[in-house]
């Protein structure tokens, strides 16, 4: 018999309690893994979204691109700055989209010009892109098209203007979850829909670089862009950030990360208390047996290893169960139209490892006190325990 076999036998002697403990812990751990996975995927998607350019510019002091707002004139001035190779301005905001049933959904609208960098990552699945002068046309992300059950040639109402419906001219796929659940309209249309005539929510810059890796050139442009002022509204300040810094500064992502970690901390606390309760009960029930083990020569450390081993095995089972619950839960969540443009169902291996690590920590912390108590039992008293 291996020591680990002995530990397993201890767990299987009370199968109902073991299963319930694992199940309870798995649900807790599953919610934690699901939140960590969502946070990880959103973060990864956001990081991917800002690749392919050097600076992302938005209004200073705003939490995200969605509530940034400044004059288009600033974009034109940035375009003329020395060292700037290309500029792609855009509108990103939530807008109402009316279904044929009359129901209204709030969807992400991206207003782009034809040369926007975003088109470079897109793959048109059906139909075509819009031309430079086209208006009242829309490209639907594959996920949004599926949710709305729309195809090329259909019409839909954006922003509440029922007199001027938009024609779906293309369905696209994108590596970015946000874009798959979004609609891309011509820049001017987006300004109308969101009530931002003559204004943008942000723009991206590609810097002219003499070498592939020269941060000084990007830094020079960044300072010049941030120094730009709108004469009509001098209070508006711009912030230009590298893609990585931009993603880290997004308030929504910060909030999501904070929520994911908060859920993890709560899961950790609940898990530790649950494990502590289970293992304390288990040790109490086996006081006499532990006395025997001590009597036949087991040192306190082996008793500690036995109890902690049981706790860790429970944790590993809970981690496996939790990962399965999280995977099923995320798949289920993506079936809900309200969120499936924002949540990717897969769980990255690093999240699984992190979840397992936290769960093992739950086992070790929750089992520590019962293990200590078990190791301190005096054999003679423990054997007499009834």
């Amino acid at each position, binding site marked *: *018999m*291996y*020591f680990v076999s*002995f530990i397993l*036998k*201890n767990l*299987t*002697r009370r199968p109902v309690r073991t299963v319930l403990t694992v199940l309870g812990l798995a649900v807790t751990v599953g919610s934690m893994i699901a939140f960590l996975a969502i946070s990880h995927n959103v973060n990864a998607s956001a990081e991917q979204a800002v690749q392919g350019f050097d600076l992302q510019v938005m209004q200073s002091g705003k939490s995200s691109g969605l509530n940034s707002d400044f004059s288009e004139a600033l974009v034109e001035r940035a375009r003329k700055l020395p060292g700037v190779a290309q500029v792609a301005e855009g509108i990103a905001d939530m807008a109402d989209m009316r279904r044929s049933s009359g129901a209204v959904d709030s969807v992400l609208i991206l207003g782009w010009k034809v040369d926007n960098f975003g088109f470079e990552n897109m793959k048109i699945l059906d139909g075509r892109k819009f031309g430079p002068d086209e208006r009242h046309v829309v490209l639907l992300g594959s996920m949004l098209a599926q949710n709305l059950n729309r195809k090329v040639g259909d019409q839909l109402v954006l922003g509440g203007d029922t007199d001027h419906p938009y024609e779906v001219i293309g369905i696209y796929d994108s590596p970015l979850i946000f874009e798959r659940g979004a609609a891309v309209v011509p820049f001017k249309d987006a300004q109308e829909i969101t009530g931002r005539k003559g204004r943008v929510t942000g723009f991206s810059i590609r810097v002219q670089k003499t070498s592939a890796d020269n941060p000084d050139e990007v830094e020079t442009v960044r300072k010049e862009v941030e120094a730009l002022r709108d004469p009509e509204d001098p209070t508006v300040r711009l912030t230009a950030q590298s893609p990585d810094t931009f993603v880290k500064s997004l308030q929504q992502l910060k909030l999501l990360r904070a929520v994911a970690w908060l859920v993890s901390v709560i899961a950790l606390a609940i898990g530790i208390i649950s494990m502590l309760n289970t293992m304390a009960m288990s040790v109490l029930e086996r006081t*006499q*047996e532990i006395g*025997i*083990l*001590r*009597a*036949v*020569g*087991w*040192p*306190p450390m*082996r008793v500690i290893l036995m109890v902690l081993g049981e706790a860790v095995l429970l944790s590993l089972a809970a981690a496996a169960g939790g990962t399965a619950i999280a995977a099923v839960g995320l798949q289920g969540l993506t079936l809900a139209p309200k969120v499936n443009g924002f949540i990717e169902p897969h769980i990255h291996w690093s999240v699984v490892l992190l979840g397992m690590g936290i769960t093992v920590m739950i086992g070790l912390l929750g089992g520590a006190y019962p293990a200590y108590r078990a190791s301190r039992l*005096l*054999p*003679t008293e423990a*054997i007499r325990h009834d």
Partner: protein
Amino acid sequence: MIDETDPNGDLLFADRLYKTYPDGDVHAINGVSLRLREGEYVAITGPSGCGKSTLLNVLGALDRPDKGEVYFRGEALSRRRDLDHFRARQIGFVFQSFFLLPALTARENVQIPMFEGESMPARERAKKADALLELVGMSKRADHRPNKLSVGERQRVALARALANNPSLLLADEPTGNLDSENADKVLDLLTSLQKTHRLALLVVTHSDEVAERADRVVRMKDGKVVADSGSDLLPTPDPAATG
């Protein structure tokens, strides 16, 4: 009289042991001295509460005396820091209530002390357990859990467990106390046979006259003291300072 200057030469020498439990001022053992030779079978008898089991626990390093010393092959146990290791390697315990682990089979129960014995692979442990179970006539019941064994069989498995690490001393606390006369005889036969074939020192606490009759020596206790020892010149000499 006790030769206090020469604790060596015996397997076990208990020198004026005192033990008082914290929940009372009764001396569970009160100045007990005892000598046990290699391969000797000693029975400790006496009325309930006279301190027999407490003495057994102290001699088996399960408990520490308040005063006095236990020498094992001349070495004072109070100076050893590894009493767990000492118990695992030198002492085998047999209890009245068997105390087998219910989740384990007979074969697995016998292996429990081996985790602290001589280092050996799992397969070797199982082999050794099988050999010990054969020795006690339980090889056909090796895969059974305790709840599927009769009380006599359980005690035989407990005996095999006690022999797991080839101890020098077997301590048995009322080993036949929970057995009917037939099973008691079988276990007793087994105990005495093993004691002889393995040259084990055997110290048995018992109320049973039959158990005591088979012993080389009978030590009788009363009120925490040794009042008679049939085969020894050792007589208790309580420390006046300790007894007040």
